[in-house]
């Protein structure tokens, strides 16, 4: 296997009695877009700050491009960092902000001007180069921060919840812009967010963090469809966790029983008989009809209108199941008995 571009080896970070990052092993390849996703306080910022050199690991090694960087001060790491609150210099114009890393590297004035202009064009802010950051909107400041982190062509760009302060529309626009830049410039990007849809939209791979440990790392598809743990299943997207007990594993197909004694078949997973498990089924994978293999009967408790679809809250087998249904004339109403079904392929077993 090739040497990873960015490598964390058994990296821990301890603040007093609190272990914030716990024996982290992580390999990021060159040109990859990796998102770190996790709830507040799970150590994402700390990991980024260790990579950028603002925090020293309590133990373990961090290497970039095959070189160990633990002794390297932040200003020599050559990483573009986009901070959570932009961190633009308020006493400098937009152009001066972007020129700052170039002047720190002794780039000649003429070349620096040219590169600043190119960077401004890239983020479509050419007309605002003389403004102060305080005279810009949040989205514009965001783009200045991005231009400033990219103008010196760093090998790695670290972004800490860079879109957190933007409204939904602008955030989606910026997500596409950043993804586009990533592809065009071949950047290696480490992107911190606690917004799972943002991570799913943008990343090559997602690392899901919980309490300083990686719960799962993989492509958005793997993470979404095959969550490794209950935490991941709950954290990424919406899911139904149906309690069940493993019954028998016969070859390709395993069977589980629900609390009401009903038996369901689930795909590809070796289960020990008697094991307590959860079935994770996405709401959009459950059909409000009996057309699929695993059928459950229930009573509609609530119908929630969502514009383009309906959400049915159903009591079934002593649990609550949420499913997504198309809008139609024949939509069930509260109190109706209903039969739901899903395919064994669409349910994923995680430990309880």
């Amino acid at each position, binding site marked *: 296997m090739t040497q990873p571009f960015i490598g964390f080896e058994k990296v821990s970070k301890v603040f007093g009695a609190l272990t914030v990052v716990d024996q982290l092993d992580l390999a990021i390849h060159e040109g990859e877009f990796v998102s770190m996703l996790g709830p507040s306080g799970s150590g994402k910022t700390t990991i980024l700050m260790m990579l*950028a*050199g*603002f925090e020293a690991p309590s133990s373990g090694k961090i290497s970039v491009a095959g070189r160990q960087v633990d002794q390297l*001060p*932040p*200003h*020599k*790491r*050559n*990483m*573009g*960092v986009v*901070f*959570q*609150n932009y*961190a*633009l*210099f*308020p*006493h400098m114009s937009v152009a001066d902000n972007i020129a*700052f*890393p170039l002047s*720190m*590297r002794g780039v000649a004035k003429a070349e620096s001007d040219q590169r600043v202009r190119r960077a401004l064009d890239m983020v479509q802010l050419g007309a605002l180069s003389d403004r*102060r950051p*305080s005279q810009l909107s949040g989205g514009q400041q965001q783009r200045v921060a991005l231009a*400033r*982190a990219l103008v*010196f062509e760093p090998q790695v760009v670290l972004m800490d919840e860079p879109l957190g302060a933007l409204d939904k529309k602008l955030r989606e626009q910026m997500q596409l812009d950043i993804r586009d830049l990533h592809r065009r410039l071949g950047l290696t990007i480490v992107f911190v967010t606690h917004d799972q849809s943002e991570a799913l939209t943008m990343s090559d791979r997602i690392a899901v963090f919980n309490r300083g440990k990686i719960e799962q790392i993989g492509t958005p598809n793997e993470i979404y469809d095959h969550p490794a743990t209950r935490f991941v299943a709950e954290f990424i997207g919406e899911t139904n966790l149906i309690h069940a007990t493993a019954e028998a594993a016969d070859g390709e197909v395993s069977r589980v029983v629900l609390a009401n004694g009903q038996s369901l078949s689930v795909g590809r997973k070796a289960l020990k008989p008697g094991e307590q498990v959860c079935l994770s089924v996405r709401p959009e994978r459950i059909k409000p009809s009996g057309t699929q293999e695993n059928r459950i009967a229930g009573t509609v408790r609530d119908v929630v209108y969502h514009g383009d679809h309906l959400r049915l809250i159903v009591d079934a087998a002593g649990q609550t199941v949420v499913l997504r249904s198309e809008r139609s004339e024949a939509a069930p109403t509260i109190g109706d008995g209903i039969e739901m079904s899903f395919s064994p392929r669409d349910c994923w077993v995680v430990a309880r």
Partner: protein
Amino acid sequence: MSRRRRLPVSLALIAPLGLFLLIFFAAPLYTMMSAAVSDPIASRALPGVGSALASWDGSAAPGPDAQAVFARDIRSIEDDQLFGDLVRRLNSAKPGFRTLMSKTRTALREDLKANDLVAIDERWSDPAYWQAVKTATASTFTDRNLLAAVDLERSPAGDIQAMPAGISANRTTLARTFVVSLLVTIACLLIGFPYAMIAASVEGWKRQLLLGAVLLPLWTSLLVRTAAWFILLQDNGLINSALMALGLSSGPVPLIFNRTGVVIAMTHVLLPFMVLPIFSVLIGIPKNLMPAAASLGAAPIRAFWKVLLPLSMRGVVSGSLLVFMSALGYYITPALIGGAQDQMISSVIAYYATGAANWAMAGALGIVLLAATIILYTLYLRLASDQQVQP
């Protein structure tokens, strides 16, 4: 409440402040300033002489008419106090008037017909004496004190010229005042900026402790603090004993009755005025700007110069102004800790005001100090607004 009814209420609310400022600030300031430039004695004592000498050319003693007016005015002075003031006023312009005037007055009173002053005393043929009389009676205002405050005077012919060397040292004292104030400001800045940075970077009780330590001097009387420095700085005081005990110096370092002592003590007293404004600006600077500068390739020193210092400039400017302006008026500390060569302009003003009862000179020196300060302040504001920072 309507706008119209609110106005009288607002005026009533600020009335105490207005009255306070008027009675305790504006009025004394006006009194001192007018005392510096008013010179009514001679005009009052010799009411006719001013116009009689107006057309005199100053080459020789004035003609008999003018002398007659002078003699008449002298005879009609009943008030000995007023005469004494007049003599003092004229004598301060030209020595010799004291004997001349009493001799002339006695002679004029004995012989009510005599109008030829030269016959009474030869000195009246000297135009220099008449020049002094003319200047004194010409106007109720004078620039004598203001000129004297910057070591200038008028020649008998009325031109402005430097005072003979050794008579007055106001210019030197004024220059020294500015130099000492500048030294103190620089010392406060060099100590205060890093101190404020440290105080802004820590939190909780450590910050309270640091700020408390720097605020402590403000809670004790200036006199007590100065007295404490007086003890500490002595040849066998704590500092010198420590230096010698540590072997850093073989004999006592002269720290008292010289400029060093004055600067040390004043820096200590004025430090809070530097630390507090800088601190308040520093804690307003977003915490992630310095990491951002580092991530963009700025080594710590350059990040300081390019980011932290420009952003804290407002605090530096207001702190420096506060310290400098306060230092200009310092009086007790230089008087107690300084030597003869370290007295500042305030001591000279205090000497004129309380020691010599010369309110006019005290007022004039005050005006000069005020003017110099305002000019410096304007220059500073001009410079500061050129590189306006707006965090």
